[in-house]
């Protein structure tokens, strides 16, 4: 309940106005929480529109807001058209199978997969699945490793240089290596998941591992000496010490790391998909760029906005999870 409310600061004043409490004050709150951001977006749209009509490329004008809106409608309707086609395909297939079964009862019906190309929405879904797999894999490695490193100053001294060296490496540098290694190790005739997915996922993981790792280690290392003394006096064993003392007190830092990591993961993913040809948003942008039709720039701009919105949404979701998990409900997290 609280989580929903905290993302909608205008809701409470609206209810109060409906009740007739402090109307002018509550209107002010709404103007500030809704009106001002809206005005900002409006100004941005106007500047974008004015600038776009003055940028000429070989593929026509740079897409303005109206063209982008048009293209986004096209992409959505194309998705539904494709879905309708798929349904028809399966319906026809079933009809045919039923007819053959009626003729020959021993016939074993086969269902063939629909092989139409993925739509924009399918590509968004692929991107989300890829980024979340990479992010979850990275977190599953980074949090335990961060705890172990944070607990021991020796391990910290040993690993810190390695972490600092790998942290700034671009996904584009990792990708060729990851591609070759995945090709060498992942060889099956009937792959459960495509190679391009694994390559993108591992690249995402390699790039978004570090913020969580570093922040967890710092959070664990900065637990107050008083709490460590309590743990020592109680002679808590290692596991209980970690669960009861270390984890709760470093939760805020772990989440700071996780949010940074998820942001990086999403950024890296687009680049990785472009080069690995994983059928997600990155590939969409690349294909449109190669395609070079008069609609391409508009579609790429749709992708840019989608990427931004999803990145924002992912961060908000992490924030909500942090608010639920964190014990310090009074702390302001933003």
């Amino acid at each position, binding site marked *: 309940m609280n989580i929903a409310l905290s993302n909608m600061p205008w809701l409470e004043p609206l209810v109060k106005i409906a009740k007739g409490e402090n109307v002018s004050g509550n209107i002010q709150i709404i103007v500030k929480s809704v009106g001002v951001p809206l005005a900002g977006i409006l100004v941005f749209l106007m500047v974008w529109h004015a600038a776009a009509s003055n940028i000429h490329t070989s593929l026509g004008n740079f897409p303005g807001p109206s063209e982008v809106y048009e293209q986004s409608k096209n992409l959505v309707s194309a998705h539904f058209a494709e879905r309708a086609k798929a349904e028809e395909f399966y319906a026809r297939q079933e009809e045919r199978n039923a007819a053959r079964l009626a003729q020959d009862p021993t016939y074993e019906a086969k269902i063939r997969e629909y092989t139409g190309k993925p739509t924009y929405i399918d590509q968004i879904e692929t991107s989300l699945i890829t980024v979340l797999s990479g992010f979850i894999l990275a977190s599953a490695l980074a949090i335990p490793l961060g705890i172990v490193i944070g607990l021991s100053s020796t391990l910290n001294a040993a690993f810190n240089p390695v972490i600092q060296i790998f942290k700034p490496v671009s996904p584009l540098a990792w990708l060729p290596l990851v591609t070759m290694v995945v090709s060498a190790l992942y060889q099956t005739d009937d792959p459960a998941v495509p190679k391009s997915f694994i390559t993108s996922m591992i690249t995402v993981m390699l790039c978004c591992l570090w913020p969580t790792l570093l922040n967890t280690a710092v959070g664990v290392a900065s637990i107050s000496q008083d*709490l460590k003394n309590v743990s*020592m*006096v*109680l002679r808590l064993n290692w596991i*209980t010490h970690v669960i*009861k003392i270390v984890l*709760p007190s470093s939760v805020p830092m772990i989440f700071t790391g996780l949010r940074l990591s998820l942001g990086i993961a999403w950024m890296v993913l687009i680049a990785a998909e472009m080069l690995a040809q994983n059928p997600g948003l990155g590939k969409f942008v690349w294909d449109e760029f190669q395609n070079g039709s008069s609609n391409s720039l508009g579609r790429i701009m749709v992708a840019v906005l989608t990427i931004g919105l999803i990145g924002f949404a992912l961060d908000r979701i992490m924030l909500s999870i942090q608010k639920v998990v964190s014990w310090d409900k009074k702390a302001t997290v933003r």
Partner: protein
Amino acid sequence: MSVILDITGCGIEFQTPKGSFRALRDVNLKIKKGEYISLIGHSGCGKSTVLNIVAGLLQATEGGVVLNGKEVREPGPERAVVFQNHSLLPWLTAYENVELAVKTVFKGKKTKAEMKEWIEHNLELVHMTHAMHKRPDEISGGMKQRVGIARALAMEPDVLLMDEPFGALDALTRAHLQDSLMEIQKELNNTVIMITHDVDEAVLLSDRIVMMTNGPAATVGEILEIDLERPRNRIQLADDPRYNHYRHAVLSFLYEKQRKVEDFSKAKEAKAEADSKVA
């Protein structure tokens, strides 16, 4: 009564970047079962160091501590500590904080129901039953310290160690907690070592006051037996000549025999230097 805790020839030397620093030397103290001992001295004289060595949080570099015939080498719940700033886990309620200690200490010795009863009993001792499901940030400083004491008592320690338990509290809350502590002490008769800065607190609560000399290389200066019958009442004692005599003895040790002169002379030097610069 038998000696339960024996500190013999205890000293400690810290290795610092500027060379070794001797904080304590030759501390000798025998504590009988059920005795209430106060450690008093100027700040920086190594009172906390003594307590931490007994707690096992610091290791003496010479001499040692023997509790119940066994040498102290590491921290343990039989030497429960009440920390100055309560040190409650902020994400647990008062009850859960005590529960963590009880579950660890009495694992396999008490049933779940017995543990629950024991936790509640200890919170009742410190008058915290009304707020036992509140978290530390929802209760006052005095209440937090009460929970800290309940947690230490719940471990059924052989020796209860208190590091300026009421130092961070206002005078009224402190008096209140001192009374509570005397009440609890009457019932449980624990062996206690308490560090304090407060002369009245030391005289009121203790059987013996151990006065420490100034550091570096601090040691036990004098030991004062407080021969006042219990229960003690702070208001009646305020007019008691014996009480005032004990107070006087501690005060004269602290402010005459062990007066902190160096700080004054340093401050004077600094002032003179500053003046000369201005001139």
